[in-house]
């Protein structure tokens, strides 16, 4: 049995960030991920925001982590070379009642310690966001709010962890804990057993099931809350920051936001569902986000939508970390007293992405508090270099790149300008991209107007060549999602 100091269950942004935080120390670490790639579930389908921190309930762990993480993002994104922009965000009020609500948010934000918050006039808002609803009368402006590429953050943190010695096992599903004398000493997975002094539950949507297997918090339950999104063609609409509606009691509402890929993102709605795999988009949901978006930007045009998708938030039911506050649904980040060897996380829904850098550090602090001797490595490397992106290069840089590697001269995705060189580099990167969607998440190929119609056969061919497989074995997102069934000229059931 392979032995590690730490086993992290789950390769989302939280699992990968914790892996990176721990990789600073002299520890052997294994991260297990059940999917064919990291960040496939919640970390790649969300609003891509770095929240300022005024929204979370004061006294909650959510508020504490969010506000602590917000200023860390410049260093986090800088070291990992990931797309991040502190563009600020607005909560837009369109009538008197909503203006009152802004005051409440302002007060809450100040209590949480969010810097720079202020209420601006409708005209100030319109000067920055000309497309905003002309009826907007005022807005709460949070200059520290920002946008990022959430999958890039997950990947970069994961890669940096790998650079610093962490091992990542994909397609590896946690099944149960191995315990000895009431202490967790390892995990059973579909790919064998691994022993570890510590196991970190970063299983996101599955975090309830994982902690229950350790006998922790039997009443804790994750309710998947589905949110649907549209992406709008970058040629058709330009938003400079993040526009929130005034929140309702249940949700932050349908927002309209800039993205790091220069498109506009609209969504999400919020729908509690039972199935943790159901990322369907629905006609009703699409209408809902459509109407929500029109409230903020009335000119948004349905014909300019280029993609739609849904994500699942891992909504928990834990009581507030501060027991004097009447709030349910807080983050769980703890080392439970009842079982040894478990770092338990759960309910890391929004603002989980925003809070990720702080959560990584918080886990380190918790471990130190529990007497774990963490010794820093001399050769820890916090910088994860970015890989070249043809789209962002100047003509001179392109010329030089193609001279070094001719494959950068072959454009595979025209809309997003992604070259063969970039695809090949991702296939052979520290956390290899082995499926079409994995390449799409890393390069943004196939996300433009034609939605992969042109590039898909070419990418399947490149994947097959680089992985030494038949195109029949290439998948969209892992086993069972093969693109192609058989060769032509064969009849079903007969060999070629």
């Amino acid at each position, binding site marked *: 049995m392979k032995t590690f100091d730490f086993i992290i269950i789950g390769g989302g942004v939280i699992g990968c960030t914790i892996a990176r935080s721990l990789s600073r120390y002299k520890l052997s670490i294994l991260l297990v991920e059940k999917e064919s790639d990291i960040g496939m579930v919640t970390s790649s389908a969300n609003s891509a925001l770095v929240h300022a921190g005024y929204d979370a309930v004061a006294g909650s762990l959510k508020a504490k982590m969010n506000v602590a993480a917000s200023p860390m993002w410049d260093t986090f994104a800088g070291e990992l070379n990931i797309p991040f922009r502190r563009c600020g965000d607005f909560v837009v009020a369109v009538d008197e009642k909503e203006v009152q609500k802004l005051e409440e948010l302002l007060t809450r934000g100040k209590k949480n310690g969010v810097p720079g918050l202020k209420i601006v006039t409708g005209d100030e808002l319109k000067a920055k966001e000309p497309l905003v609803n002309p009826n907007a009368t005022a807005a709460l402006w949070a200059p520290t709010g920002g946008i990022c590429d959430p999958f890039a953050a997950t990947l970069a943190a994961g890669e940096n962890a790998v650079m610093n010695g962490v091992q990542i096992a994909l397609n590896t599903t946690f099944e149960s804990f191995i315990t000895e004398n009431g202490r967790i000493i390892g995990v059973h997975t579909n790919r064998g057993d691994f022993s570890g002094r510590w196991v970190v539950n970063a299983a996101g949507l599955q975090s309830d099931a994982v902690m229950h297997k350790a006998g922790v918090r039997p009443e804790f339950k994750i309710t998947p809350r589905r949110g649907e999104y549209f992406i709008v063609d970058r040629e058709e609409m330009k938003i400079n920051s993040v526009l929130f509606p005034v929140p309702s009691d249940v949700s932050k509402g349908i927002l309209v936001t800039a993205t790091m890929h220069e498109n506009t993102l609209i969504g999400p709605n919020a729908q509690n569902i039972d199935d943790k795999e159901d990322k369907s988009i*629905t*006609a009703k949901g699409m209408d809902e986000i459509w109407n929500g978006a029109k409230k903020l930007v009335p000119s948004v045009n349905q014909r300019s*939508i280029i993609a739609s998708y849904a994500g699942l938030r891992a909504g928990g039911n834990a009581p507030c970390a501060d027991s004097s506050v009447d709030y349910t649904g807080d983050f769980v980040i703890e080392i439970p007293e009842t079982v040894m060897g478990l770092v338990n996380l759960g309910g890391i829904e929004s603002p989980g992405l925003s809070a990720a850098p702080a959560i990584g550090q918080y886990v380190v602090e918790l471990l130190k508090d529990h007497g774990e001797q963490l010794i820093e490595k001399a050769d820890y490397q916090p910088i994860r270099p970015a890989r070249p992106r043809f789209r962002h290069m100047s003509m001179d840089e392109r*010329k030089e790149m193609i*001279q070094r590697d001719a494959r950068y001269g072959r454009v595979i995705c*025209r809309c997003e300008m992604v070259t063969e060189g970039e695809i090949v580099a991702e296939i052979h990167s520290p956390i290899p991209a082995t499926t079409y969607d994995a390449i799409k998440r890393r390069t943004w190929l196939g996300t433009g*107007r034609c939605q992969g119609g042109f590039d898909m056969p070419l990418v399947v061919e490149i994947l097959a060549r680089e992985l030494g497989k038949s195109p029949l074995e290439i998948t969209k*997102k892992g086993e069972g999602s093969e693109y*192609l069934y058989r060769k032509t000229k064969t009849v079903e059931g007969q060999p070629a």
Partner: protein
Amino acid sequence: MIKQVYDVVVIGSGPGGVAAGIAAKKAGAEDVLILERDVEPGGILLQCIHNGFGMENLGEDLPGPSYAQRYIIEAQGLGIVFLLETMVLDITHQRKIIATNKYAGIIEIQARAIVLGMGCRERTRAQIRLPGSRPAGVYTAGTAQRWVNIEGYMPGNNIVILGSGDIGMIMARRLTFEGAHVERVLEIMPFLSGLSRNYVQCLLDYDIPLQLQHTVKRIIGNDRIEAVETTRVDDRFNPIAGTEEIIPCDTLLLSVGLIPENELSRKAGVAIDPNIGGPYVDDDYQTSVPGIFAAGNVVHVYDLADWVTQAGFRAGENAAFFAIKTRNRELRSIPTTAGKNVRYVIPQQINKDNLAEKDVSLQLRVRQPIEAPSRILVKCGDEVITSKAEMYARPGEMISIDLKPKHYDVINSACAITVDVVERE
């Protein structure tokens, strides 16, 4: 070897592009270059292996590849150069083209005229707001056509097709030929969106059911598509409750329309008609940017490749006329240069032919003031063609001097004009 300047550069080697190249060459363009992103010329015709091409233009019923090859051979015979595996990255409105391929890297080409022939692309799932999960097995008909006809792979065995566009119906027959079972073709409109003859020879002939006023309400299956939920719709396209059906399938093909492909046109500053998605064109198929023409499905989606070819001929011929005019103007022009103590001269270029008929006025400013009698000298090399006396020469006061038809002979054989302003001796 790729030259730096061409009379006509065509983007795309489908029927429109190749026809434009041929017509341009025949109309007198000296050199014509066709840029193609694929490994061989022909465009989407190469995957359209079915018959039905050429009846209008050639009087023969040909498959797409045969039809394409006729014109490609003609183009090659005329000396037209095809640059393959080359993707155009940018076009400026001064008709500079920036492209890339893995052999030459970044290529910059100046065209005297450009013909846009990028064709069209297929509408996607998001554009028709198709609900449900996002598994493998949902493809546009054209993507499936490439896999089946060029690369030799089957996307599945049990197929539902959404949309009664021509490619969808043709793929229904094609997949049937390759041993797949096409469950049905659904069309949201109360009428067929493709050609009636394709309904007969692609669906009726093979007993493939067509359901009008039906659509997909939901895609089912997480990894690979497992089924679709279909529904009947009313006249306003709203699903009619109680008409839902779950149809098991492993593939859903979308044939829900084509859109002119104009990313590059936009970069060149070409105005696009928002109703159609293609550039505004005049009767020469010239776009809003002078010297940039457009031919075929890039303008609007045609029913027949034959008509695309005809549009290509017209655009190519006019592109050649434009290029020839531009070339002549370039040939008959000489530059004016600021010489001794001259800051600038306007115009920067003189068309020699204009000088044969009328005076051409040169306007200039000096660099340094000369507070004494001065002389303006217009020279070709060392030879002074004409001169003019001034009392002073000051930067704040514009000076002008005329060239006259009598100077035509000297200037006709010159390659540049220089203007000096000096103190009179």
